[in-house]
């Protein structure tokens, strides 16, 4: 009896904390539905009492190309990151390359270099090679946010693949490449998905590289869409917040999916498969 009451007390407190924490998110949604004339009302409406879809209409009319670009950039970054990280992780985890430790160390360090500073070097290179303001250029730059992380995470997961599995593949006549493609990759499916989701999220959310390397581009990502909005029409906050809500959808959806995959252990997956 007391135990139950105690649990409910905790749940109540937990709900209060969560509400406080997520208030900004709620406020973003609330403002996205607020009419222009109510925007500067004091005190503000705490609920969208005169809800409007003006903001979302503006998103549909104006932000479509930005969202499409972000999608392409996100998917491109995932593909590039996996192409580079997965073989490297396989080697580091299972093939014991000489100097592998040094490489892992370099990757750890690379992860710590601020993006703002990378952006300046990229800007200089892109300007002279003509890649400035292009989608491929942005994809390459965005991938630097993810590649070190991807290699390190995939290596950790792949190290957990039982040696017996590798040995069995070898006995069946599979070479290193075939083992990688037909055994290691399928078994690591969950970690590959996890890495892909995070990579997509980072590329989708990137502002630093977009604002430096794609400022004048014909195809700009959604983060720049919001940024231009803030700069241009300071009054239309429902449109800005509606764009923000739409830009948050992938994060929310991916979080729900990713949780499942992160939870699934890699060796557990190997046994099941």
């Amino acid at each position: 009896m007391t135990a139950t009451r105690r649990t409910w007390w905790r749940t109540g407190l937990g709900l209060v904390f969560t509400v406080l924490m997520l208030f900004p998110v709620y406020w973003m949604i609330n403002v996205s539905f607020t009419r222009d004339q109510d925007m500067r009302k004091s005190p503000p409406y705490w609920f969208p009492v005169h809800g409007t879809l003006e903001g979302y209409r503006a998103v549909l009319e104006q932000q479509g190309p930005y969202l499409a670009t972000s999608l392409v950039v996100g998917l491109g970054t995932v593909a590039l990151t996996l192409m580079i990280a997965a073989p490297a992780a396989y080697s580091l985890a299972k093939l014991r390359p000489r100097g592998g430790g040094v490489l892992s160390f370099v990757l750890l360090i690379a992860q710590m270099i601020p993006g703002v500073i990378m952006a300046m070097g990229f800007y200089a290179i892109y300007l002279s090679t003509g890649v400035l303001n292009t989608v491929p250029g942005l994809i390459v730059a965005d991938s630097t946010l993810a590649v070190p992380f991807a290699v390190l995470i995939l290596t950790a997961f792949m190290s957990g693949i039982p040696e017996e599995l590798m040995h069995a593949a070898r006995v069946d006549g599979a070479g290193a490449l075939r083992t990688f493609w037909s055994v290691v990759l399928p078994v690591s499916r969950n970690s590959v998905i996890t890495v892909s989701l995070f990579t997509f999220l980072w590329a989708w959310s990137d502002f630093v590289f977009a604002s430096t390397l794609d400022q004048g581009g014909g195809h700009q990502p959604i983060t720049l869409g919001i940024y231009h909005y803030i700069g241009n029409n300071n009054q239309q906050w429902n449109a800005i917040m509606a764009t923000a809500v739409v830009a948050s959808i992938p994060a929310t959806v991916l979080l729900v999916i990713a949780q499942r995959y992160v939870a699934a252990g890699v060796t557990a997956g190997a046994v099941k498969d």
Partner: protein
Amino acid sequence: MKHATQTPAPPTEGGWREGATASRAGSAHRAPARRGGPGQWATGRWATGQWAAWAFLVPVVVYLLAFYVYPLYRNVDLSLRNYTVRSFVQGDAPFTGFANYAKVFADATFAPALWHTIVFTVVSLAFQFTIGLALAVFFSRNFRLSATLRALFLVPWLLPLIVSSSTWSWMLNSESGVVNAALTAVGTDPVNWLTSPDWSLWSVTIANIWIGIPFNLVVLYSGLQAIPTHIYEAAALDGATPWQRFWRVTFPLLRPVSAITLLLGLVYTLKVFDIIWIMTKGGPSDASTTLATWSYRLGFGNMLPSFGPGAAVGNLLIVIALVFGLVYIRTQRRQGAA
């Protein structure tokens, strides 16, 4: 060992298998010559294995050279030359040694930017860590909905920074922001959060704390899960109060995880640029300028960019980040070894 070269397994896919099976047969066959036998074959396999291993590493090595080392090299080069827009395009800027660095150190913005970076980082970390730890302890007692609520706490961390930053900008708006509306409701004077030099640094720090809490919560929560429950049971049997249990048991046992969390948080907080730039652009009059935003403003924020000094500030920031990054790696290694 000399014999190893006689039968090198070809570096092909098939060769791997041959090497492997032959090795087994070989070692069985020459069981008496224990030292020579397996060693010989192992060396042959080693060479093959190294070829394959490095073949898989070629993409990442090329990638690191092209997209990490080269941009960083260009950045160092930028900081050592006197670049103008013209010479930036033509690439014939004169070498000036450390002139850009001298210029940066002498700049009136340098001391405030460094100080703001320190305040922003230390205050952010202190609050993120304390709140994250309190929440982790709170959530470590399982209760109804605890898993769901914990998952919801991740949302601020996953939102694109431009989304959270612009939301905070509007919430902290002087005239129409909900924060000032709430302050007025409780009878306090409204605050010019983003437009007053006294408050802008605090505003961006508050937003950054909010964004960083989930990371601290998640890492510290997993650290708490690793503490065996029987230790708590023993403490409870000894009559320890919950408060004592936390300070005498949880906190000391959590120290390694705490060190990792704080150091990683430090490296990440030094990098923070988006939040500050979107909310205040480092202003008003540099009141919330950190090294990261200063570097960006020098390179990209003006009509006439000064790439040289911008790159110099950036390289200073890299050095600071790397120092703490190395401390982090060392701490982690030492803990892994212990």
